[in-house]
């Protein structure tokens, strides 16, 4: 899965590399079809120059400089720092004509730096690396604009119009991300030195950006963070913990985050690499973060990735199936049918990897839920549940435990055949019913008998309940 993303990153990079125009003109202004759909997002990004005092320079003039490869080695260091300084200047992208020349110079400079880092032609010393990371930080670590949902300053806010947000400063931002990616993946980079600059604080800020509404930005962040995780062994526990914190905040406080999907994609590949037997820490992560992620309203937006992570766990260690299944049951949606279909699909995947022993531990609550889903008046939910009986592994598990399962779901099957509105569901239910009948005719008849008995008693049971509570009320009133 991840390689695909990487390739995409490369594609983007090569495109921008090729588009090198030497003379800055107004035509080379940033992408004109960038959608800017509210006022405050366009309202000027800070345009004052940010100085790089610590590097010994302070002027923020953006000017055309000679190419690094054209000057003698001895002067390259100073020129490199000077170029970083140019790239530290931020521009206002709400107005394409403003500073068009300077913008073009920065774009070309960034492209030159990317090429330099990629080619590995000149090894960067520590000062250069520090400056590079500092420049990248200044460019990408910004406060994200108000998100769609929290923005009241938007004009003509049509909620139906589901337009993707595109950061207007992307033309530069993209190059800076590309540069960071090249730096992180470059074979010359010594992680012992680089970890001083790409430190915990850097990683935290990178994670903050995952909330960006610009999908292109999240794509880069995902690739970069994953590479950092891969290269910097020392950061691994910290990154996992920081991702957990993002999940907890999303789950318990805000319920809003744009980057859950991307983070899960990274985790999917991390989980894939977990050694066996699995560490306690990883199991806790499953229980405390991954399973609760099923609770959120917007689970549909990242369910595929989440489901992949979850099944990875179960495939690695089948003994976790019981925990996972109970977890899913705990967060079972009450009214959201779309979510319920997703849950049924995920459970099927999990059951594929489940062994008999774990299955027996959770089958009672599991099939109580399945019975409810079979009876759902939303036909897609009922259909998804009944499709389980097309799965050989599941059917064999059910057959093995039919004495427990059939009594639980018998009533649901009868009800569907009697009064489900949907023809297809009637048919599917009849098939499942027949399957049980053929499996064990004796058991089937016994269930039928019990069901009829219960039906007959149902009314009196409810009466009994009302009566009991009435007597309790009386007892309470008398204070006995």
């Amino acid at each position, binding site marked *: 899965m991840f390689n695909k993303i990487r390739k995409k990153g490369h594609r983007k990079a090569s495109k921008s590399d090729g588009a090198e125009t030497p003379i800055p003109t107004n035509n080379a202004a940033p992408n004109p079809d960038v959608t800017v759909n*509210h*006022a*405050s997002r366009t*309202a*000027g990004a*800070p345009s004052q120059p940010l100085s790089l005092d610590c590097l010994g320079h302070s002027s923020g003039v953006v000017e055309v400089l000679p190419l690094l490869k054209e000057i003698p080695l001895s002067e390259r260091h100073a020129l490199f720092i000077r170029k970083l300084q140019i790239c530290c200047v931020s521009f206002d992208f709400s107005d394409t004509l403003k500073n068009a020349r300077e913008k073009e110079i920065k774009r070309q400079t960034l492209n030159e730096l990317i090429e330099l880092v990629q080619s590995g032609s000149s090894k960067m010393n520590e000062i250069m690396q520090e400056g590079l990371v500092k420049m990248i930080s200044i460019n990408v670590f*910004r*406060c994200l*604009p*108000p998100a769609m949902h*929290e*923005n*009241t*300053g938007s*004009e003509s806010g049509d909620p139906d119009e589901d337009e993707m947000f595109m950061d207007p400063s992307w033309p530069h931002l993209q190059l800076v991300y590309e540069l960071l990616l090249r730096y992180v993946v470059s074979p010359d980079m010594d992680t012992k030195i680089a970890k001083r600059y790409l430190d915990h*604080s850097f990683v*935290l800020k990178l994670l*903050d950006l995952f909330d960006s509404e610009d999908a292109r930005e999240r794509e880069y962040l995902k690739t970069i963070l994953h590479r950092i995780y891969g290269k910097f062994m020392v950061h691994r526990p910290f990154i996992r913990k920081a991702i957990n*914190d993002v999940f*907890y*905040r999303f789950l*318990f*406080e805000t319920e809003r985050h744009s980057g859950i999907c991307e983070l899960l994609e990274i985790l999917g590949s991390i989980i894939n690499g977990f050694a066996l037997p699995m560490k306690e820490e990883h199991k806790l992560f499953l229980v*405390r973060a991954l399973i*609760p992620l099923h609770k959120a309203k917007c689970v549909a937006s990242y369910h595929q990735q989440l489901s992949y992570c979850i099944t990875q766990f179960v495939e690695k260690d089948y003994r976790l199936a019981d925990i996972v299944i109970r977890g899913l049951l*705990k967060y079972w949606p009450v009214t959201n049918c779309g979510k319920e279909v997703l849950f049924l699909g995920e459970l099927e995947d999990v059951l594929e990897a489940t062994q008999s022993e774990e299955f027996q531990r959770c089958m009672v609550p599991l099939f*109580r839920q399945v019975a409810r889903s079979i009876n759902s008046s939303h036909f897609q939910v009922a259909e998804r549940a009944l499709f389980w009986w097309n799965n050989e592994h599941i059917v064999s598990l059910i057959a093995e435990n039919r004495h427990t399962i059939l009594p639980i779901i018998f009533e649901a099957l009868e009800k569907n055949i009697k009064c489900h509105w949907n023809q297809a569901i009637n048919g599917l239910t009849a098939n499942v019913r027949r399957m049980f009948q053929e499996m064990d005719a004796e058991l089937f008849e016994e269930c039928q008998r019990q069901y009829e008995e219960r039906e007959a008693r149902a009314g009196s049971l409810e009466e*009994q*309940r009302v*009566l*009991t*509570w009435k*007597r*309790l*009320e009386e*007892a*309470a*009133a008398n*204070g*006995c």
Partner: protein
Amino acid sequence: MAMIDEPLYPIAVLIDELKNEDIQLRLNSIRRLSTIARALGEERTRKELIPFLSENNDDDDEVLLAMAEELGVFVPYVGGVEHANVLLPPLEGLCSVEETCVRDKAVESLCRIGSQMREADLLEFFIPLVKRLAAGEWFTARVSSCGLFHIAYPSASETLRNELRTIYSQLCQDDMPMVRRAAATNLGKFAATVEPAHLKTDIMSMFEDLTQDDQDSVRLLAVEDCAALGKHLEPQDCVAHILPVIVNFSQDKSWRVRYMVANQLYELCEAVGPEATRTDLVPAYVRLLRDNEAEVRIAAAGKVTKFCRILSPELAVQHVLPCVKELSSDSSQHVRSALASVIMGMAPVLGKDATIEQLLPIFLSLLKDEFPDVRLNIISKLDQVNQVIGIDLLSQSLLPAIVELAEDRHWRVRLAIIEYIPLLASQLGVGFFDDKLGALCMQWLKDKVFSIRDAAATNVKRLAEEFGPEWAMQHIIPQVLDMINDPHYLYRMTILHAISLLAPVMGSEVTCSKLLPVIVETAKDRVPNIKFNVAKVLQSLVPIVDQPVVEKTIRPCLVELSEDPDVDVRYFANQGLQAIEQVMMSS
């Protein structure tokens, strides 16, 4: 199953119900926990029911939430305050569950119980509980503990207090940002209970830690602490410790932080005193009013009146007013709307001359705003300006604004303006109203949208109340009655509704002479819906008019309707007749 003559075991009933598969039944039984407790009696509630609940915390979150809530008001059922401590263990368990709602409710209930408990019991039971939660392995317990310190602290001994402060300080530096955020959220509440000496040292150092947190989300909450802490500190300490922080925050690179500052800033003015307000807070506030981010300007604009109330009028005119002028033509409609909702309140602050000179042009330009919310916000606060400069200066611009809103294509806008009509009427006076607005009020009775017609009917009633029955006899009743012959039955229905509302205001005499004949006439309508509404209106008139009128006019009319071919008409007519019987019986 217990039969009727078998003995009753309340706990067994509860256990049985809580085992049920249907969550609704489980919820119902938790909701009736007090019944079970009363049936058990106080002692058995303490010894059997509460321990059972402590163990049964593995249910659905919804059931747990109900339990957390019920336990908060359970003190009377366990034998009063001296036994309140038995309620702590189940709530302690609920403080550590995963779901935030449940934890919050459990903390709320614990605070409620803790604030009633005797001092000795707090020492023996409550404080150890807080300490246990604060040392919890999983963050949920630690988060919950943060909300309990302000209850525990006042009754603790000197040594215990030291310990509690140390624990809180650890929570402020917890490994998990979740816990640090909870500590930041509750710092103000906790600080209110801490002695001044420790406030200046311990609490302030916790505050400083939080303001420098590397997570944005924690620093954000520290902004709120600024105002809360400021209230408890001496002015000079506030200037020394809080002021620099808030000034810094007001220039934070994160708009979320600046947004919080814009919301909170005015609360600090009092705490730091007039001098620091002038030199530091006013410039900070002015920066926020001119912020790049619309969200920040919205927050700042919404506080403009509150802020100016604290300042001297000169400062307000000199520094804030220029920004207000800019904001009145801000590019974001929401900024203008926020400004319009508070700006009228500035009139009393600035006084008559400044209002006429400075504010009036702004009012007028906002009254012409293209966005209806802005205009509505101005109109809704008209009374505040009226007191200062009178309405005459505004009335020229008001009328076109009102008329335009009255005809807006969005019915919600029309509805909003109708609701302000009685206010406008009282401010503008009878004369203005007769000339300009009377026709509008009648026009709304024939609006296409039901909600508008409904509001219009209520509106004529409120006008009659405002200007008195005599005025209404001239300016409302004839016009309204005129419309009863409208060809559209929905409009006739609206008029019927208006009549029923007007009757109590107009009194018995007018009702009998003017309204009743019209209603009786309408009883012959061809549409059944009209007829059964007539029956309803007649019923509502019974208490207003005299007995002979009821007998002579209302009853015969209802009797006739009670023989109508339509079943609904008969039903409501019979209801009316029954109501008459009841009145007769009781009189």
